[in-house]
């Protein structure tokens, strides 16, 4: 088990380097001169020179690359061109909101999706199964920002049940009140995805010999479904959980925009519009590192739920 975990951690290191390198390449080389990209075509030569100096673009590329990596490891991602705030500070300010939204959405998605999947699998090919299949088709087709806008119009604007955007005031109930609709929006798609995954995984597990063994022992249906079935189906479900955590995170970008919530996604999007080069880079790095982190986390979750990895001979 220790070896497995160590292996995963070691595997993540080159991946992180590769991703950072790609970010570097994309930011410095692809769009041409970042100074012109940031300041626009009409910038004065002095402005450009000053910008290059400030961003450390006057040194050779290899040195820029080194500085770039060093900056990340020393948690210095430069300063916003607009507000001159350190990018790490911006990230520290906005990240909690994004995490709050993502976690809340995942909780709703899991709480909805897994029972739904169990229900569909137990009633295979009967009406609940078909209804859930229909829900799935819609869930995959409807863009989350559209659904969010509809919920906003209906529940916040027309019925006034929820605030129109924002994150609420300091106390926890007001925050939950404000995060509920955006989280529900993201959870709608997650529920469909996790529900379908749970159904498929459970049906596969139900065909296994050990399920028959459990019945032969005298286990009742509930016990067979949950203790033996779902417990084994958790392996594929946890993979899906990782995937949907990632897609919730990427979905949060648009949802933050719809509900006018602060967050890393909104930070990134407005930085793009404002050509705030350093903040864009910081936002990209945060998201990219999240991808690595979540994948790593999923590998570690397997350790907990799969004794075949946890306990070796």
């Amino acid at each position: 088990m220790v070896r497995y975990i160590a292996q995963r951690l070691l595997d993540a290191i080159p991946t992180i380097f590769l991703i950072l390198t790609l970010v570097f390449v994309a930011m410095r080389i692809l769009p041409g001169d970042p100074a012109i990209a940031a300041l626009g075509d009409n910038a004065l030569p002095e402005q450009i020179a000053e910008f290059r100096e400030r961003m450390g673009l006057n040194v050779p590329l290899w040195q820029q690359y080194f500085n770039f990596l060093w900056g990340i490891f020393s948690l210095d991602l430069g300063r916003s061109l607009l507000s001159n705030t350190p990018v790490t500070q911006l990230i520290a300010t906005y990240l909690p909101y994004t995490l709050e939204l993502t976690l809340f959405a995942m909780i709703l998605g899991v709480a909805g999706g897994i029972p739904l999947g169990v229900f569909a699998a137990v009633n295979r090919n009967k009406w609940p199964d078909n209804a859930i299949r229909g829900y799935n088709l819609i869930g995959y087709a409807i863009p989350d920002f559209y659904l969010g806008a509809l919920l906003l119009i209906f529940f916040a604007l027309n019925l006034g049940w929820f605030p129109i955007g924002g994150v609420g005031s300091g106390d926890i109930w007001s925050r939950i009140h404000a995060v509920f609709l955006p989280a529900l929006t993201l959870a709608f798609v997650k529920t469909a995805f996790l529900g379908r995954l749970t159904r498929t995984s459970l049906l596969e597990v139900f065909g296994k010999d050990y399920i028959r063994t459990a019945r032969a022992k005298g286990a009742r249906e509930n016990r067979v479904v949950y203790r033996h079935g779902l417990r084994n189906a958790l392996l594929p479900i946890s993979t899906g959980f990782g995937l949907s955590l990632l897609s919730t995170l990427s979905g949060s970008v648009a949802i933050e925009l719809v509900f006018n919530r602060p967050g890393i996604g909104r930070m990134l999007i407005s930085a793009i519009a404002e050509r705030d080069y350093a903040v864009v880079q910081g936002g990209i790095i945060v998201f990219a590192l999240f991808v690595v982190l979540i994948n790593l986390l999923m590998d570690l979750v397997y350790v907990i739920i799969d004794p075949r990895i946890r306990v070796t001979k």
Partner: protein
Amino acid sequence: MTALDHGAQQVVAPEPGKFEIVGKIFAGRPATVVAAFVIFAFILIAILAPVIAPYDALAQSFLRINHGPSWQHWLGTDQFGRDVLSRMIYGSRNSMIFGLLAPTLAAIVGTTLGVIAGYFGGIADRVISRVVDMLLAFPELLLAILIAAALGGGFWNIVVVLTVAFVPGFARVARAQTLSVKQEPYVESAIAVGVRTPTIIFRHIVPNIAAPIVVLMTLWTASAIRLEASLSFLGIGTQAPNPSWGNIIRDGLNNLFGSPWPIIGAGLAITCVVLSFNLFGDAVRDVLDPETNQ
């Protein structure tokens, strides 16, 4: 040599006729027929946009800001007085172009990379597989957002962004398929008797990995349309004032108190088209690549 080549060809199962495949896709699936009809209708709308759009999609007018639906403006007007229906009709062009173009380009690039990695192996395989694996860890939307963040909007940039987002998926499938086809007796014997590599790749490998690639292309058309809409919604796709279903919703959101109709209309269009392409893609997959069906 020619004789051997010929013999090798015969090991391949006879391809069903094109019409047979099309027939199977629709046979006994009313939903697929409806989906195909919707797709066809939207393609027609996209092509004929200048003819059927009642107004100029870009024409602003202060005289008719935020009108609700009426006989003149079926879906009302937006905060600039533009006709929402006309903007949606023109917006369909974006969705269709990117939806069809991006998966095709991604299929070409991804298949090339995947076949190279799978067929030649070695260092090429290691490099390609490593990068592909890493990119596959990213959800397509996130990858697209990150690339668009670096590149900026604009037509060709969107093409690049959407293509790059789908390349890893195609590359992985193509690589895996190539590896398995390469072990088939007809390929091994062709290699053994010294058939030239390009001949092997184009006559034996590519035709035999085509089915899953085509399946992915149809399935990901829906994803590409969704992605383009998302990017345009975020303001890093199709740029204003050009209409796209995504930025119609974006404009609508900035005008929430004015009129909800742009949001409702454009979102419905995206949902319908994506749903139709998904249904159609599922049907194509069931026929061409039944093994992967769950």
